């Protein structure tokens, strides 16, 4: 009787999660796989085959876009780590107890505004008639208005800005768990600042670094709004290709194949990253 109740409550507690995974993740992806393996041979006539994937390989634009998305995502991840690490270190180790919470909250504030609004914020600042261009003309640094939008640098800046928070949070939590005495011991035994960072702080924070990088990389590679709004038509982001296939060309089969390729590609990159840093998913993402 007692164990029946226990089992029932476990099932009830587990049910929403299981439904969510099954209905929204596993089922659609299986559908996608099936969809992507259909070849259109005539209007409304389909055949099983790898045609959609072969199309992808044969068309350099497609895989170039995927590689471009991947490499830019890696760049964004790297920049987010480079900028986020000192911020996280400051919040976790240097800031006083009271200011720590406030600083953390400040990092969270941008999340209160939607992605779209934040992207429009950047547009207001960076466009030809925007704040920065106008200001530079006003102080006489330039005579022609400059278009800061629609180039790779802007896309990278915008993406770093959007995702950096997801780098800072896991970093703060791992660095917070680090005993200050460990850093002092590093100095005490003769290490200089660089040695202590390289041999003690970074290895200790590695689970947080890897977990932040995975989250940031996945978010960047799968982002749509920021590259489109800040990069315009030139952004050539792979999600844009997928959108194009699904919506513009109404070629769901090809779109499904692209979606699957993006998933496979990012998974491979994450796997390589884990292998290179000697971490596992269990002690990185699962922990922080």
């Amino acid at each position, binding site marked *: 009787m007692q164990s029946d109740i226990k089992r029932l409550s476990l099932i009830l507690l587990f049910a929403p999660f299981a439904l969510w995974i099954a209905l929204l993740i596993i089922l659609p992806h299986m559908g996608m796989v099936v969809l992507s393996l259909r070849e259109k041979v005539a209007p409304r006539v389909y055949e099983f085959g790898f045609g959609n994937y072969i199309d992808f390989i044969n068309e350099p634009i497609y895989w170039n876009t995927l590689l471009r998305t991947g490499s830019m995502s890696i760049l964004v991840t790297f920049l987010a780590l480079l900028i986020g690490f000192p911020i996280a270190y400051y919040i976790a180790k240097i800031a006083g107890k009271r200011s720590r919470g406030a600083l953390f909250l400040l990092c969270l504030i941008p999340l209160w505004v939607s992605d779209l609004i934040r992207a429009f914020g950047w547009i207001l600042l960076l466009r030809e008639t925007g704040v920065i261009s106008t200001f530079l003309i006003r102080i006489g640094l330039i005579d022609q208005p400059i278009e800061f939008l629609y180039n790779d640098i802007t896309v990278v800046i915008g993406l770093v800005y959007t995702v950096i928070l997801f780098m800072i949070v896991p970093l703060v939590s791992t660095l917070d768990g680090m005993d200050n005495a460990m850093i002092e*011991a*590093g*100095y*005490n*035994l003769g290490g200089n600042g660089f040695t202590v960072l390289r041999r003690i702080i970074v290895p*200790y924070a590695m689970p947080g670094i890897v977990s932040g990088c995975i989250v940031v990389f996945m978010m960047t590679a799968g982002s749509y709004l920021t590259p489109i709004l800040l990069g315009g038509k030139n952004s050539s982001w792979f999600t844009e290709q997928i959108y194009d296939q699904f919506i513009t060309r109404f070629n769901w089969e090809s779109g499904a194949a692209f979606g699957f390729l993006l998933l496979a590609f990012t998974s491979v990159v994450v796997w390589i990253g884990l292998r290179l840093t000697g971490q596992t998913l269990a002690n990185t993402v699962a922990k922080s």
Partner: protein
Amino acid sequence: MNTATLTDSALETAYDLECSNIHKSFGSVRAVDDVSFTIPKGSFFSILGPSGCGKTTLMRMIAGFEDPTSGDIQIKGKSVLNTPPNKRNVKMVFQHLALFPMMNVYENIAYGLRCVGTDKAEIDRKVKDVLDRIALPDVANREIHQLSGGQKQRIAIARCMVMDPDVLLLDEPLGALDLKLREAMKIELKLLQHQFNTTFIYITHDQSEALVMSDHVAIMNEGRFEQIGRPEDLYHNPQTSFVAGFVGDSNRWAGRVVAEDASGFRLETDAGLVMTSVRAVGQRISAGQNVSIFVRPEFIKARKTSTPSADGGENSLQGRVDSVLFNGANSRVLVRGPVGELIEADVVVTGGADDLRAGDDVTLEWSAAQTMCFAA
């Protein structure tokens, strides 16, 4: 070689550490207040004090993690005030050891050697050597979390000793261990210190750790050194009432001096107990002054009033046993004295019929020389 360099080197070897007039303030709080001491080469020196007395701050200043507000710290005769922590040849065993969990034992010990650029063969040799000396030759490839508490302790010491420091600082490293292990580690630490023949500075609030291991102990209270001396001096000849109360157990009474003569004082506690004490060298108290009176339980002889008197001492009072606190060799009786206060006295409990039991009438006796009093 001329005489000047001879005296220089003689001075250098005399003291491993010399602190003079060290002050440290955090805002308006004086953490360390005018502390001066010297530590001879190769000795085990403890700083004993209650928590918050400034001992950790003092140690952090020696290690270089804090700068003194004023005063000078010299290691082997050279001031280290402008030397950053990583350039001082002072190593520190942290309270929670701070072993690096992402490195194995070998890497932990080799870390310091790598920092100073020792070559690989030399590192191998030194790590092996130090592991042999701490009697853990086979743990080099273990991870830190695979070690027991006592092993971690020894690795933390080995990690410092492999650097051949002038001074090793230990910040209450036994605090986290359980009682049995702590007792064992006390002896082990003392042996390690003998073996390495390096100056150890040991910080603790546990008097038994300090008394058992140290050649010299400094008693610290509210940022000041109350007394520095050998453990037995501190115990038997405390200079201040804080030291008398902090080191060892005592019966403590507030009272005043009712009479004095050349040999000693006649004292009366606020509750009305009367006793005599011997004038100690340099003691400056006089009749009428308020004093704190200390008598250690092991110097009070308790005998049943019915048994014949032995030569107990100048002070004697009657009482009744309130309770017996049995603790093996450290057993004690609580005696309700003539004015109703409880007095502790050590007794030997043999398990025989002569043992004191609650309700027995007893006579407590102790000598005037064992009555310590300090101006209150």
